[in-house]
């Protein structure tokens, strides 16, 4: 098939091998990300073990509702990204394009809400290293909690931003008819990346926002 000739790279036997290669490559990359975030989660565990009161105090100062809404936003964005893969697989152009577009858009919504939160913390002088002023007890623990909050959500946000950019690139390529049921590897592997970023947030939300909130 002429179309498949142009997308098959010279060192591969067939499209099947090419597809398996790109999928395996992305999964290995995602495991490197697991280890990367793993350092942060391990740090979190070590310091929560050492400063339980400080972490609880810090967590109570978080905007729990925004966090929950953001969680839902990312989950819905994952749904749309998954839908775009379904569209690519079945030749459903509308699903492919709208899935990618809405997914990316919801990613932007997440970033906006995050920005609102960050600004909010800045207003409350809760940004270690930039503007931190915590006069109550557990100061060390609270400072470390907020440090980890900013680092973990910051690195997550960087990953999400990169994801949004790549989704837009794929969207443009999809708009130009680059993908078909026979060949849509980039859509699939970008989807895998997006869902991974979502999963990181699934864990960040309870660990950062839901410590010891009982009334």
């Amino acid at each position, binding site marked *: 098939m002429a179309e498949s000739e142009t997308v098959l790279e*010279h*060192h591969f036997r067939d499209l099947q*091998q090419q597809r*398996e*290669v790109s999928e*395996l*490559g992305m999964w*290995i*990359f995602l*495991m*490197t*990300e697991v*280890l*990367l*975030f*793993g*350092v*942060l989660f*391990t*740090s979190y565990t*070590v*310091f929560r073990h050492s*400063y339980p009161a400080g972490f609880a105090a810090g967590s109570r100062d978080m905007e729990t509702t925004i966090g929950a809404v953001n969680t839902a936003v990312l989950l819905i964005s994952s749904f749309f990204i998954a839908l775009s893969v379904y569209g690519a697989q079945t030749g459903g152009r509308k699903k492919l394009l709208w899935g990618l577009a809405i997914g990316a858009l919801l990613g932007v919504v997440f970033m906006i809400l995050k920005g609102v939160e960050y600004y909010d913390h800045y207003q409350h002088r809760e940004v*270690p*290293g*930039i503007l*931190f002023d915590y006069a109550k007890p557990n100061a*060390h*623990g609270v*400072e*470390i909690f907020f*440090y*980890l909050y900013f*680092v973990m959500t910051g*690195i997550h946000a960087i990953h999400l931003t990169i994801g949004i950019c790549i989704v837009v690139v794929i969207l443009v390529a999809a708009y130009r008819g680059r993908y078909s049921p026979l060949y849509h590897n980039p859509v699939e592997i970008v989807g895998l990346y997006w869902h991974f970023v979502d999963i990181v947030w699934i864990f960040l939300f309870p660990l950062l926002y839901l410590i010891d909130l009982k009334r």
Partner: protein
Amino acid sequence: MSSEVIADAKPPEVTVNYLNEKYGLKSWLLTTDHKRIGVLYMISITLMFFIGGFFAVLMRLELLTPQGDLVTAQTYNKLFTMHGVIMVWFFLIPSIPAVLGNFVLPLMIGAQDVAFPKLNLLSWYIYVVGSLFTFYVVVSGGVDTGWTFYTPFSTAGSNTHVIATTCGIFIIGFSTIISGMNFIVTVHKMRAPGLTWFRLPLFVWSLYATSVIMVLATPVLAVTLLLLAVERTFHVGIFDPALGGDPLLFQHFFWFYSHPAVYIMILPGMGVVSELIPTFARRKVFGYNFVAFATFGIAFVGFLVWGHHMFVAGESLYAAMTFSFLSYLVAIPSAIKVFNWTATLYKGSISYDTPMLYALGFIGLFTIGGLTGLFLAALGLDVHVHDTYFVIAHFHYIMVGGMVMAYFGGIHYWWPKISGRMYPEGWAKLAALIVFLGFNLTFFPQFILGYLGMPRRYYAYAPEFQVLNVMSSAGASILGVGYLLPLIYLLWSAKYGKKAEANPWKATGLEWQTSSPPPKENFAVTPIVTEPPYNYPTLENPLKESEQPGKQSLEEVPVG
């Protein structure tokens, strides 16, 4: 002139191979051919090796006298830091995988290229960018934290270019991750038909295990250095006790990467030795399955021992005991390999070509290095020799006596394949001998110095240590000569060396079934593998003349 037609005269041929299929800088800098990328890495890594070696020369010059008289204390700190940073990240880690692995792996598995050729080129460019950061640091005053960047000195105490250095290392980490990912996918998905896992050469097993370590450990280093940079910049963080943090957590994360990193360094070397020994003993590897599993065993257990770097740093006693016990375990698979190589040599038909000299040197020196590792794994003994020259001697025996010798052995072994030329054997043997003697003179005295109590990273020392230090520095100068010689004669041979045939060593393995140098697409026809690896003839299984390794090429399959 006779008019007789000579039966097997061949017309003079101009063979097109990967080196001459296209000329010009652009064809090299934009290549996606794994062989050219291997050569690009070889050039970069050689440069970094000599720069890192230069810092070692300065250190050994300073250590000729007990007083600190050549450089200031802070300069000396910068010297050992730059030596460590460059040698670890810009030489040892990439060396065999990026140079020999890139070149040989697709050939060994009968593939046209690696799984992601463009990413392969990208990994080289990332290496170059990382190196540029290092050059910047070298010319602008260096960094003095030690290659281990312990906090809080690196985050709050040092006033040198810590962040620039960690940036360079952060960047080059991605080169490692990409290479590792590339190799794993290549080995899984690009093997020739019939090439099952247990028919693979052991070098492939080693590269695979190395790649698994690369992808799992390097991200940890990346984010740890990032946290270090953030802490240094914003003066808040988790590694500084003044801020409520724990400096030992940095060490946990740093060594979670850096201990497996030493296995990234040594496993490819072991893989090379596993190729050299069967070729130059003309015997299949004794206990192939054990060597293959031991390779994975080292990779796995290597992740469980990092706390042995922190026995005296403040980790809890129970953690120390756990890590000590696990450190003993990791010696087992390494020992299995040494036993199996030795058993392969037994009753083999041994020839002492240069690659074999390096392989034999590896076995002996790695064994010494490895055994002294066991000394260090013992809690009671480590208390006394931690941070002394004993540790330095231990890891240099493994890294230089082991790894660098394996690298040189591999370079010599595959040189005919890479360049299409033979190196001058006489000079090569001489250089190998000089390296072996120079190495031992440099580093054996350091075991004694450490045992006697001379601390590492000190530019001045007690006068009673001078004799041993002078011996060590003398050895270093000899070692330097040994390293310079190959640079000269290998470059010479690339142009003037005797032209090499496809299989000059008469070895088994798919890489020898194609021409020296290979054509761009490696194989004219995809090979089909039906034989076990290292299928050398034995008394029990004498092969037909036509089946002898080296007698057969793919184009000349005998009829009947």
